[in-house]
């Protein structure tokens, strides 16, 4: 059977009875087994998956499919709580945690008949852009430079989710995106990553990093796949007070790739001398492509673009410092004994959290503490308003905005800067979108001179995912990006 199968193709094979869910599941489980070196999975739930696949096949025989996607194997970021399956957020502090509940998003997948193969590695509590902060070790990007044997980062925090799709360890996967955690790894691995509008997808049962920014979304091989998976996971959830009350949409069926008359904004603030020539060229090529397909290019300004990253590094740690207070060794997770309650707390949290998580908790505590709250936290919230306003004004003139997804392509795992701020700069193009709460997609456009994927980011206004997917499909269908990583990890 063809490898590099996408979601829609896999569905069609099942529909034509050319394969079964069990067969598909076995192939992917085998792929996973052979890809240990990539370290994509924290937990592989092989037995459960095969069991579920068998049931799906029975449903198919009986004509009782749960949805047209029934039987497709997927991977789930280890940030989604999954009933009776270990859920760790790639943190030591949750290394023994087995939820008794299923997140709304994964439940929606189960209800559609999807088969979960297991839990995908990620940065600890989704904090990172390299997947190196995971307690279970870094994920390796399936892509390698054609000039070096060095292992590359897959990006983060949904590094496992992106690498697994790129390496055919699952057909599609679920990630979460707080400041770029879906789009940046998608960009680094030649996959499609969609961050929906804040509120489009329920956060219930997803381990929280920064509640006002977190949003789950699909990582897939194609735009159609992203549309399909978004359709499955989206919708109002009464258990999440920040879930939009908007109606569910049929993103896949409504896909329409025409961009005639569509106005594409090109923000001048994203241009920079530091941008690699190949990325700049990819961006320029995409503009031309859209223009020749009938879109209109409009120069726009998002004046607070460069303020977004420092704003994010106030708001996200502030919320995280509070969200992570519940990991205290009392009701779940690990506990390190102490002489008294305070010592137990301090030991548990010091041993349970990794360095990056601790840094962010400390910074978050700092910006909320008395005397600093107004200068940092309130200030950041005000600048958040300015950033949102920039986008509001832009969308009065344009339908969508086109930018690079990341300031660079995948870099070496060993090559980590000492200064955490240097690492934070990976998110410079993705973070403003989370602060504004709007949707954005990263799609692979071409490869750079080292044969590493370059992703481009499309952005639309709130709840305009359909438009976003349509434009992305237009680009996808025109460039027909077919590059796949050589599967060096199998040898």
């Amino acid at each position, binding site marked *: 059977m063809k490898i590099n199968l996408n979601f829609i193709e896999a569905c069609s094979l099942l529909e034509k009875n050319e394969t079964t869910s069990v067969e598909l599941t076995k192939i992917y489980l085998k792929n996973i087994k052979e890809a240990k070196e990539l370290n994509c999975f924290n937990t592989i739930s092989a037995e459960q998956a095969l069991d579920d696949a068998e049931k799906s096949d029975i449903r198919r025989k009986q004509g009782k499919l749960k949805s047209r996607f029934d039987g497709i194997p997927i991977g789930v970021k280890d940030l989604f709580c999954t009933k009776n399956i270990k859920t760790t957020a790639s943190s030591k502090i949750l290394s023994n945690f087995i939820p008794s509940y299923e997140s709304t998003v994964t439940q929606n997948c189960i209800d559609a008949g999807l088969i979960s193969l297991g839990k995908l590695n990620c940065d600890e509590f989704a904090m990172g852009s390299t997947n190196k902060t995971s307690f279970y070790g870094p994920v390796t990007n399936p892509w390698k430079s054609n000039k070096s044997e060095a292992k590359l980062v897959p990006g983060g925090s949904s590094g496992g989710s992106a690498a697994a799709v790129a390496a055919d360890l699952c057909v599609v996967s679920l990630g979460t995106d707080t400041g770029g955690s879906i789009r940046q790894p998608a960009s680094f691995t030649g996959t499609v990553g969609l961050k929906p509008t*804040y509120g489009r997808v329920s956060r219930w049962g997803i381990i929280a990093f920064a509640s006002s920014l977190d949003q789950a979304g699909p990582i897939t091989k194609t735009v159609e796949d992203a549309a399909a998976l978004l359709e499955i996971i989206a919708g109002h959830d009464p258990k999440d007070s920040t879930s939009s009350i908007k109606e569910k949409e049929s993103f896949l069926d409504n896909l329409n790739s025409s961009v005639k008359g569509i106005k594409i904004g090109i923000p001048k603030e994203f241009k920079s001398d530091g941008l690699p020539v190949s990325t700049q060229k990819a961006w320029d090529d995409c503009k031309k492509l859209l223009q020749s397909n009938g879109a209109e290019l409009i120069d726009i300004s998002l004046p607070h673009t460069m303020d977004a990253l420092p704003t994010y590094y106030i708001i996200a740690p502030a919320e995280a410092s509070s969200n992570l207070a519940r990991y205290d060794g009392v009701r779940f997770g690990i506990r390190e004994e102490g002489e008294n*309650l305070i010592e137990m707390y301090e030991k548990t*949290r010091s041993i349970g959290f990794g360095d990056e998580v601790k840094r962010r908790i400390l910074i978050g505590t700092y910006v909320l*503490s008395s005397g600093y709250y107004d200068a940092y936290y309130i200030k950041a919230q005000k600048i*958040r308003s*300015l950033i949102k306003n920039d986008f509001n004004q832009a969308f009065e003139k344009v339908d969508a905005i086109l930018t690079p997804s990341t300031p660079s392509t995948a870099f070496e795992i060993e090559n980590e800067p000492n200064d955490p701020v240097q690492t934070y700069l990976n998110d410079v193009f993705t973070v403003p979108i989370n602060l504004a709460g709007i949707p954005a997609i990263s799609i692979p456009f071409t490869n750079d001179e080292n044969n590493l994927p370059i992703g481009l980011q499309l952005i639309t206004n709130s709840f305009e995912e359909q438009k976003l997917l349509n434009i992305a499909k237009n680009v996808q269908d025109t460039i027909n990006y077919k590059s796949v990583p050589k599967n060096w990890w199998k040898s």
Partner: protein
Amino acid sequence: MEFDKDSLYKLGKLSKIQIDDSKLESLSSDLASIIKFIDRLKSIDTENVDPTSNSLDQSLVMREDIASDVNTADEILENAPQNELDFFSVPKVIE
């Protein structure tokens, strides 16, 4: 810029994270670097700007007052590192 030791210990106390002596220096310089980075915002004029704490433009949806969640002590204690007689158990606290 320096992030002084006392402030760091104070943050550690507030957030219940031990500041390891061996990591004191690197942590202090990391935090200093981050704070220098976020300090860039100070020069931005935000007069008359309202803060945004959530981008979703919606008011709070309320639920009906129905006690529909039922549990047993066993269920809620299932993941607890230590429990006794249907209680969570922690090192003795003196009030």
